[in-house]
């Protein structure tokens, strides 16, 4: 159970203009701006839930993760993770969480991965039987057997990420924070990572909180999404709810042989190339069949398809809606 209530965090950022003169000036006199990274963040996550945390760069995703994992102390507000306040009982709290920072490695660069794992065993004082069991299990699920004896510096990004995830699960944490776990991975590795996370959540009831920019991650993994922008929670709901909410827009793909389009109210031409056109239909202005009928009067349609908006487009429209 994770609960955040009215969490605020402000950073003081020194700012100066470019140029040598300005740099020298900044040595003596510094201007600071207050950046409110988190404002009045409140939400709760139940045990065993899987939550996607989305928002543009700099929206406060990582800061929230850092507050929940005990790295940052907020200026005000409460955060309660399994009855503990992360920054107050840091050591006790972090025993039960696993954190993966997609852009930062926790593996030792020059030694085989298994050596890093063994150091983690000592850091978390994992009993050796549990350690053996976990390593065996994770090795099988993430197909690490050939990677464990390789130094981390020789692993590909996808291989390394699988090892990173294994490393953060060695101590059986009940909560897993994933900060952009699929960043920079190829399609095969992404799918492998997603599949593993999903299975872990289902079988072990591990609570997963995941930040990402990859909407396929969200679509594949999470039922619930939290949208954060400019430090505020803008939306908290399920992906399907969100889709419904934004279902008034449909995408219409048309292939045609002859004719030209006439402008039509509620129908927006998005792209057109070589006998193929893409429209967005606002269903509150004009029905899908109405739109097709009108279009068919002027052109000879050879093929067509209608889709709801993808998660990606949903997010873009959300960002637009909230002007973030």
């Amino acid at each position, binding site marked *: 159970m994770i609960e955040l209530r009215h969490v605020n965090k402000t*950073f003081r950022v020194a700012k100066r203009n470019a140029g040598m003169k300005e740099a020298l000036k900044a040595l003596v006199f510094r201007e600071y701006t207050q950046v409110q990274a988190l404002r009045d963040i409140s939400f709760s996550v139940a045990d065993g839930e899987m939550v996607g945390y989305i928002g543009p760069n*700099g929206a406060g995703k*990582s800061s929230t993760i*850092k507050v929940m*994992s*005990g*790295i*940052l*102390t907020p200026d005000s507000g409460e955060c309660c993770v399994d009855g503990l306040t992360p920054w107050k009982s*840091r*050591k*006790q709290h*972090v*025993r039960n*969480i696993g*954190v993966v*920072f997609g*852009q*930062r490695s*926790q593996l*030792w*660069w*020059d*030694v085989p991965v298994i*050596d890093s794992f*063994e*150091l983690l065993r*000592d*850091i*978390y004082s994992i009993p050796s039987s549990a350690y053996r069991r976990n390593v065996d299990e994770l090795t099988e699920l993430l197909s690490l057997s050939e990677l464990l004896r390789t*130094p981390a510096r020789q692993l590909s990004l996808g291989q390394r990420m699988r090892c990173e995830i294994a490393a953060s699960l060695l101590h059986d944490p009940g909560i897993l924070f994933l*900060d952009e776990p699929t960043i920079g991975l190829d399609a095969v590795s992404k799918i492998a990572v997603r599949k593993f996370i999903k299975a872990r959540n289902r079988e072990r009831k591990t609570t997963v909180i995941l930040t990402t920019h990859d909407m396929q991650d969200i679509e594949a993994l999470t039922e619930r999404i939290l949208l954060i922008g400019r430090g505020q929670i803008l939306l908290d709901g399920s992906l399907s709810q969100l889709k419904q909410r934004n279902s008034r827009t449909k995408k219409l793909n048309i292939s045609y042989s002859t004719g030209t389009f006439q402008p039509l109210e509620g129908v927006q031409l998005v792209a057109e190339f070589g006998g193929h056109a893409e429209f967005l239909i606002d269903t509150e202005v004009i029905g899908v069949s109405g739109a097709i009928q009108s279009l068919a009067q002027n052109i000879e349609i050879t093929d067509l398809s209608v889709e709801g908006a993808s998660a990606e487009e949903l997010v873009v429209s959300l960002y637009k809606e909230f002007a973030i």
Partner: protein
Amino acid sequence: MKLYLKYVAMHLRSQMQYKTSFFLTVAGQFISSFSALLGVYFLMDRFHQAGGFSYSEVLLCLAVILMAFSLAECFVRGFDAFSAIIANGEFDRIMVRPRNEILQVLGARIEFSRMGRLLQALCVFAYAVPRSGISWNAARACLLPLMVVAGAFVFAGLFIIYAALCFFTTEGLEFINIFTDGGREFCTYPLSIYGERILKFFTCIVPLALVQYYPLLYLTGRSENWQHALAPAAACLFLPLSLLLWRVGLRHYKSTGS
């Protein structure tokens, strides 16, 4: 402590991955600290004594400080490189581990290549101790290692203060090197030769005189004052004080973006 040894083993294994680089760095360190030795040699060759101290006494001084510094640099390097640890997010990782932060920072960097300097200090010791003309007794024999250890504590304290300031500035503050590297250079000679003010500074603010000048007085028989012999023990207090400052800084930790 057991965990720290594991860290030591990991670093040893890591650094042995690049054997050539390792041995070259050790050799480089060994040779570069010769400059200090040569400086002392030529000066003393010309003037025979500095502020009433003989050549071998100055050498002893040099050996103590060199050894203290290289010990601190080898094992407290994590605090010396703390701005990098904060900048690359390593410290975030430390914060999500259920262990003492200080232990983990110590474990984050252990540089065995600093052994070069240590080796050099040992050589100077081996050369200076028999020639120093000190009439050894049990108390004096105990005092010498105490000076080294206390010196390492003071330098470690300086590194930690530097790290504590990083919490507030994120960027490293190079000015602290005036006290670490500068202190090391200053302490090549007994601190009294620089005059009253410098001696006071190194007694009260950066207590390097407590591990060098005062115990040296006792060691060479210039003073029988037991307070001078116990000065290094007092200098050790510098370390807990600096750790206290570090703890205060920790509460201000801001992390860096990812």
